[in-house]
């Protein structure tokens, strides 16, 4: 049904293509992440924790921020990846990348199976199902202590050098460099996915399931796919933790870890991927600072911060910043969004 006279193309549609282009601020973020290792090498263990937490939060962003699936059990996949990589290193190969692949595969498999349980039902149902799946895995790990080490944790995880060249040391520099590289690569994967047609279909499902199905989007298949992908990335984060700390313990499957990653993502903001990175930095740095200042009550302040942020809302906190960015862009004449917004304001 092509119209016989094709209307002239809209002049500004290039804006849409530019939306997926790599931005200057993104380079800044990753350069800063790299500089952290060079400027503060003695904090490498902390940076490593942040990188792992960021990857975990990004995996949750795919599921929660993009597809709109509320989950209180995302640690199920983190923990699965963690134990899979740890057990693989203990019993099989010591190569980190092979172990990482095993962690990803195991978590993806569990995520795939679990995804069919979040297809139906209300948000409350989904919260309970995700919570339940994580609890079940936690108890399985607890029960089979002959394999997992139970409450004592899994000892004897021996890691070989990365690519056969870089051995993990006590100073955690190699650990951070390794985690940062994995984070960056998987971030790029997630970044491609969210800008792709599939990524838009996810956001469509989040915004309006009825309409999504009405334009031919297979809601169920998309949810299975993103849940599996999110689980795979969470599994990668868990594998990184096992490999860089040479240890796995039950808390990787615990409710606290599911709750923390949710908190991290809410802190940083959902639905733009960098929320996971920024949230992880804020969470761990604030947690470190607060626990040094008031070792017993730091969670009070963290809780207060979260409540304030959620009540005020990201939208309101970042508005000033966004309007500033928009103004600069308009002055430079590079932002058709701001232009058309300004035109329609004038027209009123």
């Amino acid at each position, binding site marked *: *049904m092509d*119209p016989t006279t*094709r*209307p*002239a*193309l*809209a002049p*500004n*549609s290039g*804006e*849409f*293509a*530019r*939306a*997926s282009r790599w931005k200057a601020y993104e380079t800044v973020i990753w350069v800063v992440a790299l500089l952290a290792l060079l400027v503060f090498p003695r904090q490498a263990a902390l940076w490593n924790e942040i990188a792992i937490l960021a990857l975990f939060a990004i995996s949750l962003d795919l599921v929660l921020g993009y597809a709109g699936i509320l989950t209180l059990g995302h640690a199920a996949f983190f923990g699965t990846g963690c134990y899979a990589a740890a057990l693989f290193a203990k019993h099989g190969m010591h190569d980190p990348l092979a172990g990482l692949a095993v962690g990803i595969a195991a978590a993806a498999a569990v995520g795939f199976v679990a995804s069919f349980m979040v297809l139906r039902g209300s948000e409350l149902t989904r919260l309970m199902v995700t919570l339940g799946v994580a609890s079940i895995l936690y108890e399985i790990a607890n029960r089979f202590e002959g394999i997992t080490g139970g409450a004592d944790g899994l000892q004897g995880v021996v890691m070989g050098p990365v690519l056969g060249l870089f051995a993990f040391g006590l100073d955690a520099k190699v650990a951070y460099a390794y985690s940062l590289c994995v984070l960056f690569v998987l971030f790029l994967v997630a970044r*491609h*996915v969210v*800008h*792709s*047609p*599939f*990524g*838009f*279909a996810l*956001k*469509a499902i989040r*915004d*309006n399931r*009825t*309409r*999504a*199905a*009405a*334009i*031919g*989007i*297979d*809601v169920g*298949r*998309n949810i299975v*796919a993103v849940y599996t992908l999110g689980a795979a990335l969470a599994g990668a984060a868990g594998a990184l933790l096992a490999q860089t700390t040479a240890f796995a313990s039950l808390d990787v499957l615990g409710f606290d870890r599911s709750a923390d990653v949710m908190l991290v993502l809410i802190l940083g903001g959902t*639905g733009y991927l960098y929320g996971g990175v920024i949230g992880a930095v804020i969470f761990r740095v604030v947690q470190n600072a607060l626990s040094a200042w008031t070792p017993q009550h730091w969670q009070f302040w963290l809780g207060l911060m979260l409540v304030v942020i959620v009540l005020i809302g990201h939208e309101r906190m970042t508005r000033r910043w966004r309007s500033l960015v928009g103004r600069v862009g308009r002055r430079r004449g590079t932002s*058709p*969004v701001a232009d*058309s*917004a300004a*035109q*329609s304001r004038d027209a009123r």
Partner: protein
Amino acid sequence: MSTPALAARGLCKSFGGIAATQDLTINLAQGARHALIGPNGAGKTTLVNLLTGLLAPSAGTIELDGHDITALPTHRRARKGLVRTFQINQLFAAFTPLETLALACAQRAGIGARMWRALGRRAAVVDEAAALLAQFHLTDVMHRPVSELAYGKRRLLEIAIAVAARPRVLLLDEPVAGVPAGESAEILDTLAALPTDVSVLLIEHDMDLVFRFATRISVMVNGMLLAEGSADAIARDPRVRAVYLGESHHG
């Protein structure tokens, strides 16, 4: 007689004992301009929901071009060309009109599950979306979030999404509902410009619009088909006048 574009036979659906649709049979001819009218609560929207798979009928069959689609989920029906608009806008609030239509075009083109190259860099679908924006007078707001658009513009987008799917059968559920009279002309123009091979079922309250648009009319009352015929015949039908046009002939 050729196979109807869309045929529903003996459709039944009840909600908690109230029959919203009772043994309803309706045929939509190829290339039809068919209107479905009836008072509020007659079950018109329920029928659209049954036809598009949003609801499952308790009895009856639905055929699209002679193929049984009764058991198909909504998205499969949409991919086969059975497309609808909604009486109450169903849009993606966080999207811009350009993103919305590019997504709809990508779905229709069968590349909706691709995971790598950005949607905005797929020139074919973006160009197609931009052409639709121009056709639906949405070019000036193409980069604004849907949640910021005026109601009339959202209504146009609602219809544009359906057209982006290149429907074979288009079900329009009160397309001008809530649109100020001055702005409805734009919507009517776009409806008049639909390709003639698209079969259209229009659900509408506005009788002017119905008689201007449709050549065939079905009248629904209390979940049942009361009358069906040419626009002229329906306009003269005393039963229709009685229940729908508010002229009482009952004793």
